[in-house]
C-alpha cells in the first residue's frame, strides 16, 4: 500500500524488491538492511506478535468463561407444565398475559425482528390460540410494543432464552436489594423491566 510512503523515506528511487506492488513511490524504503549477525530468528517479531495475539484472545476467552460460573446449578429439568402453572398464577396476580409463557414454545422462533416485538407477538398468538379472556392490557403493553418496534433486538434461537426466561416476578420486591440494581433504570413498570433487561442481555450474548 502506498500510504506507507507517509512513513518511509522517499528519496530513494530504486525499487529494492521485485514486488509487483510498487506504486508510484516505492513502498518500502527498506534501504540497505543488513541481515547479518541476527541473534534471533528473523521472523521473530512476526511469530512473537501472532503468538501474543493468540494468547491474549484465549486469555480473554477464559476470563469471560470464568465470569460465567454461576454457582450451584440445579440439574433437574423443570416441567414445562409446572412452569406454565406458575406463570398462570402470575397472570392471575397481575391480570396481564405473561410474555415469557410463550417463549418456551419453539414455534415462534421465526417471528419478527425484535425481542420485545417477538414477545408481544407471542402474547397475541397465545391470545388468539387460547381464546382466553385476558385482563385489560395495560398501556405498558403498547409501550413495550413501541420499544419493541424500534429497539431492534438481537434475535437468537429462542430455546436459548428459555433457559433464562423463568420470570423472577417473585423477586420483584427484592430487586432493589440485589447488587445489579444500580445497572438498571428504575422506571415503571419495574416488574417487567428486569425481565426485559435480562432477556435482552441474554439475547445479545447468546
Amino acid at each position, binding site marked *: *500500500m*502506498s*500510504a506507507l510512503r507517509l*512513513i518511509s*523515506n522517499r528519496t*530513494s528511487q*530504486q525499487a*529494492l*524488491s*521485485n514486488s*509487483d*506492488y510498487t*506504486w*508510484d513511490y516505492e*513502498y*518500502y524504503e*527498506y*534501504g540497505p538492511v*543488513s*541481515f547479518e549477525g541476527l541473534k*534471533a530468528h*528473523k*521472523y521473530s*517479531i*512476526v511469530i512473537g506478535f501472532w503468538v501474543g*495475539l493468540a494468547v491474549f484472545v484465549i486469555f480473554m*476467552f477464559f476470563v*469471560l*468463561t470464568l465470569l460465567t460460573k*454461576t*454457582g450451584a*446449578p*440445579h*440439574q433437574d429439568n*423443570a416441567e414445562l407444565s409446572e412452569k406454565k402453572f406458575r406463570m398462570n398464577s402470575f397472570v392471575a396476580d397481575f391480570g396481564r398475559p405473561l410474555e415469557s409463557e410463550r417463549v418456551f414454545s419453539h414455534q415462534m422462533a*421465526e417471528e*419478527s*425482528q425484535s425481542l420485545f416485538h417477538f414477545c408481544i407477538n407471542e402474547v397475541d398468538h397465545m391470545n388468539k390460540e387460547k381464546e382466553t379472556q385476558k385482563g385489560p392490557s395495560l398501556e405498558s403493553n403498547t409501550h413495550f410494543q*413501541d420499544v419493541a418496534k*424500534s*429497539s431492534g433486538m*438481537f*434475535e437468537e434461537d429462542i430455546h*436459548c432464552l428459555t*433457559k*433464562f426466561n*423463568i420470570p423472577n416476578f*417473585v423477586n420483584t420486591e427484592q430487586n432493589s436489594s440485589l447488587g*445489579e440494581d444500580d*445497572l438498571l433504570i428504575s422506571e415503571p413498570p419495574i416488574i417487567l*423491566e428486569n425481565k*426485559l*433487561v*435480562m432477556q*435482552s*442481555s*441474554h439475547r*445479545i*450474548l*447468546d
Partner: protein
Amino acid sequence: KNISDFSLNITDCTQIVVPEEVFFTVAAAGILENLLILIAVVKNKNLHLPMYFFICSLAISDMLGSLYKTLENIFIILCNMGYLTRHGDFEKKLDDAMDSIFILSLLGSIFSLLAIAADRYITIFYALRYHNIMTLRRALVILAIIWAFCAGSSIAIALFSYEAATVIPFTILFPLMMFFILCLYVHMFLLARSHAKKIASLPSSTVHHRTNMKGAITLTIFLGVFLCCWAPFVLHILLARFCPHNPYCACYMSIFHVNGTLIMCNAIINPMIFAFRSPELRSTFKKMFYCSR
C-alpha cells in the same frame, strides 16, 4: 541514500506476495456481501431501525476497504502494463485519494463497531427508554457525525501524512477503541451473568452452562476477529514509522500483503457476526434470492 553498501543477503526477508487471484476473490466477496446487506436493509421496511443502520455503516466501511484494495490492484496492473506512469502528478493525486479512502474505511470500521456496541449497551441498560433515546433521526445524525469526522480525519491524515504526529494518534485510537468496546460488552455480559445467577437460585430452574459459554464465545469472536484482522496492520504502521531499518522490523513488514488480505477478510467476516445473526435480515435475503429465480 547510499546504496552502494547495500547487501542483498540470501537470507533476506523477501516480500511475501499474495497471488492476485486471491486478492481479487477476497475483495470481490467482501464487496458483494456487504452490498447485499445494504440492499436488504434498504428494501425491507422492517429493517429501518437504528441497529440496522449501524450495521449498514459497518458494511459501508468494509466495502470501502475492499474497494480500495481492488482499485489499488487494478492501478498497479495498469502501471505494470504501462498505461500509467509511476511518478506522474496525476498518479500521485490518485494515490492520495486512495490512501484517504483506506483510512476512511479503517476509521469508519472502528466507529461503526463502537456505535453498534453503544447501541446494544443502551438497549440493555436503558431498555424501556431506548425508544426515546435512540430515535431513527438521532441514529442518522450520529452516523452523519461519525462519517464527517472520519472523512475529515482521513483527508487530514492523507495530506499531512509526512508528519510523525499523525501516526501516533492513529495507533493510539485503535487500542483505545477496542478497550472501550470491550468494557461495554463485558458490562453487558456481567449483567447477563448476574441474571443467570438469579435464575439459578430459583428452585427447580435449569442452569445451562452451555448458554453461558455461548455468551463468552460470542464476545470472544466479536473482539478476537477485530483484533486479529486490524492489529497486524496497525503494528506494521508503527514499525514502519519507528524502526524501518531494523532487520526484524523489515521482516515483519515483508508480510504486509498478508495483513492487507486480513483486513479484507474482516470485511467478509463482519457481516457474518453482526448482520447475519438477525433472522429478519436472513429472511429478507431468502426472499431476495427466491424472488430472483
